[in-house]
């Protein structure tokens, strides 16, 4: 394991009964980076996070966090990992300033000023009781409590779930401020692609328990390309496009109005040849946004049932 990685997994696998929920996942979070973890619900993101935090035993494979196997995390190492849980649990009877005092007493590296700045960003009055707060504000107190403990590694499991626009912005600002020194690292599981595009420098993507993407955010964008084809003059073909030559590294093919959009990774001459073989009235390249690229992958597992490649005669 490299000293520069704060998270590292080796063929990390978890079964629930006979079902593999996380399959042979190999990935790393380099120190100082903000890594987005994307995937549909049920893709294995939360199970992966729970194994990293030592809350769940891997069925096979292993993972290390801050250099230690997750099954052997000591209280000292745990205190260097910050994480929030879905729903942001807090004691409802506490006032916000009592949450601050509680954090101060239970954390050895407490940064009270950071807590204050963060709750202010979320528009929270520190005299308010937790039970009076909106969902977004409760998330703010939870985020402030986690970040003010100054962990080296922050693991956020869908922190933006159900947040209003103001709280979303406050969350992004808080994560970025937390990482300003360049020494801290974040694993951010999220469904909000715009926010991931803003704050992350790396992106990982899970589909059906497999990690199918793990690279720099710009690299991911650059390597995914798409074309639209017009096959409306042909008789219907099993609900898809007739491809006389199979398209290499095909990610996804989906209907787009009257046309079909074909998304591939690392296009080359073989891709052009396969596209040229399609009986299409017009084939046009399309610009791929970060959302397009992610969505093409997320709908990938469903493609196998709807996409047919014809063999060359």
């Amino acid at each position, binding site marked *: 394991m490299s000293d520069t990685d704060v998270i590292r997994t080796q063929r990390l696998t978890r079964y629930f009964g006979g079902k593999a929920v996380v399959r042979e996942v190999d990935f790393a979070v380099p120190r100082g980076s903000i890594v987005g973890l994307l995937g549909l619900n049920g893709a294995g993101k939360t199970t992966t996070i729970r194994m990293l935090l030592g809350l769940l035993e891997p069925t096979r494979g292993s993972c290390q966090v801050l250099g230690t196997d997750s099954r052997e995390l000591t209280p000292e190492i745990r205190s260097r990992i910050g994480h929030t849980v879905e729903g942001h649990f807090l004691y409802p009877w506490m006032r916000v300033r009592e949450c601050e005092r509680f954090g101060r007493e239970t954390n050895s590296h407490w940064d009270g000023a950071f807590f204050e700045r963060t709750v202010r960003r979320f528009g929270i009055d520190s005299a308010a009781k937790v039970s009076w707060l909106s969902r977004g504000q409760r998330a703010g107190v939870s985020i402030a409590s986690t970040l003010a403990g100054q962990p080296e590694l922050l693991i956020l499991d869908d922190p933006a779930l159900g947040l209003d626009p103001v709280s979303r912005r406050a969350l992004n600002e808080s994560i*970025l401020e937390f990482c*300003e020194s360049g020494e801290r690292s974040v694993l951010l599981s999220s469904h909000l692609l715009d926010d991931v595009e803003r704050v992350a*420098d790396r992106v990982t993507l899970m589909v059906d328990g497999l990690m199918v993407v793990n690279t720099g955010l710009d690299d991911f964008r650059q390597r995914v390309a798409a074309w639209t084809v017009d096959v409306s003059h042909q008789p219907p073909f099993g609900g898809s496009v007739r491809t006389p030559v199979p398209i290499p590294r095909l990610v996804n093919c989906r209907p787009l109005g009257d046309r079909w959009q074909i998304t591939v990774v690392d296009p080359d001459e073989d891709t052009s040849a396969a596209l040229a073989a399609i009986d299409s009235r017009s084939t046009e390249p399309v610009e791929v946004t*970060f959302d397009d690229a992610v969505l093409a992958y997320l709908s990938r597992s469903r493609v196998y049932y709807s996409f047919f490649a014809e063999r060359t005669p």
Partner: protein
Amino acid sequence: MQIRVIPGSSAAIYRQIADQIRRLVAAGELAIGDPLPSVRALAKELVINPNTVAKAYAELVRDGVLETQAGRGAFVAKRRNVYSKAERLRRLDEAIESAISVSLTLDFTSEEILERMRTKLEKLDL
């Protein structure tokens, strides 16, 4: 200097920043020697990862739009001609192609379009 970024668009965020700074320099809104905000300050203002701003600045420095002075940050560079010959040709073609396609949809002939363009250029007295 006002820069805006829109996630979810076809241009990566670093590209949006680089393109906007290029435009501000080309339009004279940023003059030679003007300082740019620090990577950290701009990242904070736009609520984006600082590496994204750093990447945009690095590209602009490489292309000669900006220059960095150790410890003082980035400034608009002296040289105005910031593109390579090939890149200049590419951009010229892009501009001409879009002008041609608009002109043709307006039902003008090649001669009319060329004549009009010649008149415009002569007026500029280059």
